[in-house]
């Protein structure tokens, strides 16, 4: 079984971003970039399937600027076998990402695609569902457990009320939630080994996908800031303040 894992290069989750003063976007100059945390979970799951003898090959794909190669190298250091970089300096929206991934799936014929449930920059939470739709495959989103039962996938999902279990036909698209696994740190020898693993370089045009944006970003602004409040000295004072504010009692 081949597993394809799309990995996105995003601003590191620890960075507090700044909105540009001309309102055209977010200032990404000299900001630390990392693999989207949900995609680390996706790579980890794929590599564990390989270690368990269920997967034969794990392919990491990234769509984005040239530096996305670093994100692919991270995936290779965690245990993926090879990479594909689809280079684009333009904004690639989830629908276009899904179309590129569909073309890659048709060429590589994986049995399973594991994505993150959302990228922590754009927070769209769309790409996996869109890819499943375009392929006519089932989708197991927000997964916290992935098992195999015969030729089917038994998948537990985190939903608003608790947990839901589905049985999916294969091939399938899975998107990861936080509790699926705890991703490993790449060891130094594996980081060295990853440098020798192959990465193919492509463009959206190679897959015949038009990446023209459907959404025009008119502006990006700061959210309203909260006023700093006060420190209370005791629980008694806290309760008095809350009564005064009319939120209790």
């Amino acid at each position, binding site marked *: 079984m081949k597993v394809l894992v799309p990995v996105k290069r995003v601003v590191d989750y620890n960075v507090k971003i700044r909105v540009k003063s001309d309102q055209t976007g977010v200032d990404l100059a000299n900001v630390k970039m990392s693999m989207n945390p949900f995609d680390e979970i996706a790579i980890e799951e794929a590599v564990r399937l390989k270690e368990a003898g269920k997967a034969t090959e794990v392919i990491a794909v990234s769509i984005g600027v040239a530096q996305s190669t670093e994100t692919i190298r991270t995936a290779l250091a965690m245990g993926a076998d090879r990479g594909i970089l689809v280079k684009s300096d333009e904004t690639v929206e989830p629908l276009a990402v899904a179309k590129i991934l569909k073309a890659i799936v048709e060429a590589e014929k994986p049995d399973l695609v594991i994505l993150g449930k959302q990228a922590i920059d754009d927070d769209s939470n769309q790409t996996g569902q869109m890819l499943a739709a375009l392929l006519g495959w089932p989708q197991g989103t927000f997964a916290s457990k992935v098992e195999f039962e015969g030729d089917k996938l038994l998948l537990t999902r985190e939903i608003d009320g608790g947990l839901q279990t589905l049985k999916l036909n294969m091939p399938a698209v899975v998107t990861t*939630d936080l509790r699926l696994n705890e991703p490993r740190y790449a060891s130094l020898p594996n980081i060295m080994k990853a440098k020798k693993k192959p990465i193919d370089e492509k463009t959206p045009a190679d897959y015949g996908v038009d990446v023209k944006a*459907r959404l025009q970003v008119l502006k990006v602004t700061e959210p309203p800031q909260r006023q700093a409040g*006060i420190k209370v000295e005791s629980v008694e004072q806290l309760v008095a*303040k809350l009564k005064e504010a009319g939120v209790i009692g």
Partner: protein
Amino acid sequence: MTTLVIAEHNNQTLHDATAKVVTAATKLGGDVHVLVAGQGVDAVAAAAAKLAGVSKVLVADDAQYAHRTAEPLAALVVSLAGSYDAIVAAATTVGKNFAPRAAALLDVQQISEIIEVDAPDTFKRPIYAGNAIQTVKSTDAKKVITVRTTTFPAAAQTGSASIEKIGAAANPGLSEWVSENLTKSDRPELTSAKIIISGGRGMQSGDNFHMLDKIADKLGAAVGASRAAVDAGFVPNDYQVGQTGKVVAPDLYIAVGISGAIQHLAGMKDSKVIVAINKDEEAPIFQVADYGLVADLFQAVPALEQELGKIGL
């Protein structure tokens, strides 16, 4: 312009998220219809018909919609989409699951989690965990939108829409629902509660969350948690508040033993009044708290319970 709102429900009751999505949908202008897809959903359809601004309720009553799994629900929505200019759903785990699938089948770039309607094609949405607000204009002829329900008021229950039964669409038959393990609670749901008390890693154990339960019972509050508390197994996943959990905006949010990471703040910083109880006076949660109490929670929380008792709660 006609908009189709996909109802959120559990086959028995209409979730109040739908009333909020209807408010967002009316801002697009034109007619608003609601689709109730489920099994044995007469009561849900009747409730949807009462929402102000809704002119028609479509009911697809069929076993394949009993759990609103993505594949059949998206297929149904796509089969109806020809008559609509916009398709709108709540950004719940149901909406986030089926809506992008429907959007891709319609070749539409979805707009996720809008917080404001500027024009029928222009919307505001948070990005980077709510640290920036993007204004986007959709160039697609049809719109597929999910709505962050905390920012829209619920539509009034003064309507009287017609109810029309429709047939099921062909079932794609790709997946099968097996089971659900839902958290049972008599307390209000996190996303609709007026008061929330949340615990973090500082709680140290699931047992200690009972201290928060007691306060919640006095205040009629829901209980939430940080990711760290969920990861540690103190409480189930559906308690998680944050960028990648639930977004809440109650009148009062009490954070206990929570440091205030960006990802947690993303889910609660629009609450009206925020209280933080933390023993570390440098904790970032204090930067958003209206009332901060620097104290050991193991003393402060029982004291809070007592103090609330004194005022008759």
